[in-house]
């Protein structure tokens, strides 16, 4: 027996991205998901359409869920989708998993945990591979969020890849960051370290049905008791233990997320966060374009490289020369 292929499959037509825009705004699922793919692939043809879509964004509450691999992020997102859609929200989810550094392929397994979400017509769940981007997100995460925002989804949940201690990019992508900790993974020294634990607007401890959860909750509460991470905010970061398995306190988590959103809107902090998100996007894009230019090859690169190899120039002199910034060398 060999592989058998049907030959009479009709060939689909390529529809220009601009034609998809009104359908995206009207909430057509096929067009929304196609637009996200085109943003991910970086088609030049899609850039005008994405610019048009951007004009219709800024309405959604963006929630980031981050934590170590296996903490239970996908399972928690599934429970949250259930609670949020029950309240009548149209929920968007971008779930990010890592790409292979060798083949570029990826296994995107977040959907396996989202059984309840799969048939819900009020939820749009999209899996994204990092495609080489570091920091916990994929490069086109922001654009995917834009497309869902313009299509009327709110809140939009970004589930990061399983992160370590320092991947805090989510803080410049979301309005409300939930850091999910798994019980039994470390002592109170882990809790006072700098990095990911500092970025939480809401701390959640997963697997509340396990006995070790109480110790993790008290370690985090102990850390919070030492004082607020951000001095200029009146927000007190709550520490909640949740169990997606039993459904325990999922409602409390949802309420805490809602309260944070209300707090942002009432204070000056929402404007501040929007500012930070826009800043990160502009800088991130500029950095990426810069990198692309270098990857495509720029004049004089080989000469500068030779100079560095023969110890005639140091790497920072060479880099400044390539940028045409020779006179801006700072005292070193």
């Amino acid at each position, binding site marked *: *027996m*060999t*592989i*058998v*292929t*049907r030959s009479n*499959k*009709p*060939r*689909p*037509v*390529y*529809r*220009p*991205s601009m*034609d998809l825009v009104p*359908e995206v705004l009207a909430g057509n*699922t*096929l067009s929304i*998901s*196609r637009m*996200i*793919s*085109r943003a*991910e*692939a*970086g*088609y*030049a*043809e899609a850039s005008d359409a994405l610019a048009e879509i951007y004009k219709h964004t800024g309405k959604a509450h963006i929630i980031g869920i981050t934590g170590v691999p296996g903490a239970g992020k996908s399972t928690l997102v599934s429970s949250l989708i259930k609670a949020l859609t029950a309240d009548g929200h149209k929920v968007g989810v971008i779930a990010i998993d890592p*790409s*292979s550094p060798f*083949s*570029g*392929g*990826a*296994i*995107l*397994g977040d*959907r*396996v*945990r989202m*059984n309840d979400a*799969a*048939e819900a*017509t009020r939820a*749009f*769940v*999209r*899996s994204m*591979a990092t*495609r080489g981007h570091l920091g916990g997100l994929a490069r086109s995460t922001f654009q995917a969020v834009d497309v869902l925002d313009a299509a009327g989804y709110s809140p939009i949940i970004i589930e990061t890849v399983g992160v370590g201690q320092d991947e805090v990019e989510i803080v410049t992508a979301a309005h409300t960051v939930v850091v999910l900790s798994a019980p039994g993974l470390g002592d109170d020294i882990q809790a006072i370290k700098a990095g990911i634990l500092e970025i939480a607007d809401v701390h959640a401890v997963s697997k509340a049905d396990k006995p070790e959860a109480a110790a993790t909750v008290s370690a985090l509460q102990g850390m919070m008791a030492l004082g607020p991470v951000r001095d200029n905010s009146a927000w007190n970061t709550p520490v909640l233990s949740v169990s997606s398995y039993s459904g325990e306190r999922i409602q409390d988590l949802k309420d805490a997320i809602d309260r944070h959103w209300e707090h942002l809107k009432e204070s000056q902090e929402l404007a501040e966060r929007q500012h930070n998100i826009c800043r990160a996007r502009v800088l991130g894009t500029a950095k990426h374009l810069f990198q692309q230019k270098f990857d495509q090859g720029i004049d004089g690169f080989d000469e500068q490289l030779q100079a560095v190899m023969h110890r005639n120039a140091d790497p920072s002199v060479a880099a400044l020369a390539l940028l045409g910034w020779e006179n801006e060398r700072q005292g070193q």
Partner: protein
Amino acid sequence: MNMNMTTKDGEAAIAKTEAATPPTIRVLVAKLGLDGHDRGAKVVARILRDAGMEVIYTGLYKTPLQVVNAAIQEDVDVIGVSLLSGSHVPLFRELGRCIREQNADHIAIVAGGVIPEQDYASLMDCGVDVIIPQEARADLIVSTIRDMIAARGRI
């Protein structure tokens, strides 16, 4: 669907997609109905991952409608279904019906698992595009999918 596009617009648009990175093929690997054996599906998922594809796995016990909805939201090129339960004909018929009903028949359906040759014709009638028998070589599974997507072109 909006069909008021002229072929010329489409061609101009496709040209602007060529400079970008080569397309990443996305595949939804799914298990339909009451069939709890997913070792084969996971092995195929791994083979496709190692060939540079992005593979979304649905988990067990899905309905055809759930699979089609997931495939649309994920904008996959291919749905790969592994079935070993013997109920492949009714399940693929329902899958084919859902996919046409949702205007998503640009997505190719690949069937694998335990499928007797006598059922091949009925599966093709249901809308299955490729049938991969159990003993198929890994590299041929990959090249069959790649060739099919290359022949289809950008969408």
